[in-house]
């Protein structure tokens, strides 16, 4: 059973989780373009700037978070995710060395998946907006 304080934590930190997930997606997307030889797979792609901005916001939110005992595990995963994704983002600033970016990025995403499993309310993807997924079971 989730207590009220933890429910508040979930609501307050949902966007932080979503933003970190988005930054991971943005970096992964840029890497796949680069690895596939797309002309758009370059460090000049606007997605990198968007990722930096979003990462700053997510990091600020993470610093403000006040995890309850029930939320400690979630918060620890989220913190580790932010640290790893931050390393990946920093690496991307020096050019698209795929290995140097991919290793911390994958580690960061794994931490996000663990965070999603640690508390309800944090989805790995937005199922409710997926085209082939039906209505929620009541």
């Amino acid at each position: 059973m989730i207590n009220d304080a933890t429910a508040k934590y979930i609501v307050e930190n949902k966007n932080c989780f979503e933003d970190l997930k988005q930054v991971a997606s943005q970096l992964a997307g840029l890497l796949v373009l680069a690895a596939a030889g797309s002309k758009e797979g370059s460090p000049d792609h606007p997605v990198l700037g968007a990722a930096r901005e979003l990462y700053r916001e997510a990091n600020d939110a993470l610093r403000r978070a006040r995890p309850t005992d029930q939320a400690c595990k979630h918060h620890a995963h989220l913190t580790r995710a932010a640290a790893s994704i931050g390393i990946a983002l920093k690496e991307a600033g020096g050019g698209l060395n795929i290995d140097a970016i991919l290793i911390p990025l994958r580690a960061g995403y794994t931490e996000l998946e663990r965070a999603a499993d640690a508390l309800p309310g944090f989805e790995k993807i937005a199922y409710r907006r997926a085209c082939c997924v039906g209505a929620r079971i009541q």
Partner: protein
Amino acid sequence: MNAYSLWVMEYAAVPNYPQSGLIYGMHNQGTRKLPYCYIVIKGHGKLAMVDVGYNHKAHGEVLANTYGVRGWRAPKEVLAEIGIQPADISTIFITHAHFDHMGNIEDFPNATFYLQERELSKWVWTMSLERRFRWLMLGIDPADILRAVDLARQGRLVCVDGDRENVLPGIDLHPAFDTHTWGSMYVTVRNDLAANSQSSWVFCGDLAYGYENLRGHDPEDPEYIPVGLATGSQFNLIMTTERMVKSVGGDVHRVIPPHEERLKDLFPSRITKAGLRITELALADGEKSQVV
């Protein structure tokens, strides 16, 4: 003469999917079964697939418990029903990047994947937009993108830019830009291998969910009705439907929507022990039926 055997393999299903999500305008008209399927193409010493399904490890529990997806089975079990192993598959065509179509990449260790370059590049562009545009990201799993990086580095991800003919003999890829997704595509199999084929099949991904999309509600007075969900435009969907239907000589039953339950009414099929349907569209010369 058939060059290829063609099977539609069900790997999971939603028993009660709202009609309005499938056929534009069918609001408050109940639900229908929505099977999740991929296509197997066998012939010329090749094994290919259209789409690969979703990653159960990542999504199975939520999809089953929260959204009512039932009966998921791994490709290993599904393909074994027709005597194939995932490692045997050499070529996979991804119609679009939604998680239930390209989520199972890692189960096919020896396959080369074909995807429209625009499908990737526009998703990445979309990701550069602000949060309020997040609806445009629907159905994308970040983990699938990470897996695609590995594929690309191994030289197993081929980004196609527009039409490509004879990727395998008689098998062509056609873009459907700005329709269901930014860079959707459909796959044509010319099963007589002729340039002006009299035996074409179209595998349309989610460009059509059911026959209503291809011929409307009255087969005697056909019309195109778009699917219930598009990132691109309904106009583009309708014009793509025209191209698909024309490419099979006007026979809409040769356009195969993988989510259409009524394929069983038109083609031989059987139900496996796991409760999943195998539908046999065509048999290559000398190939034994897998459903009778």
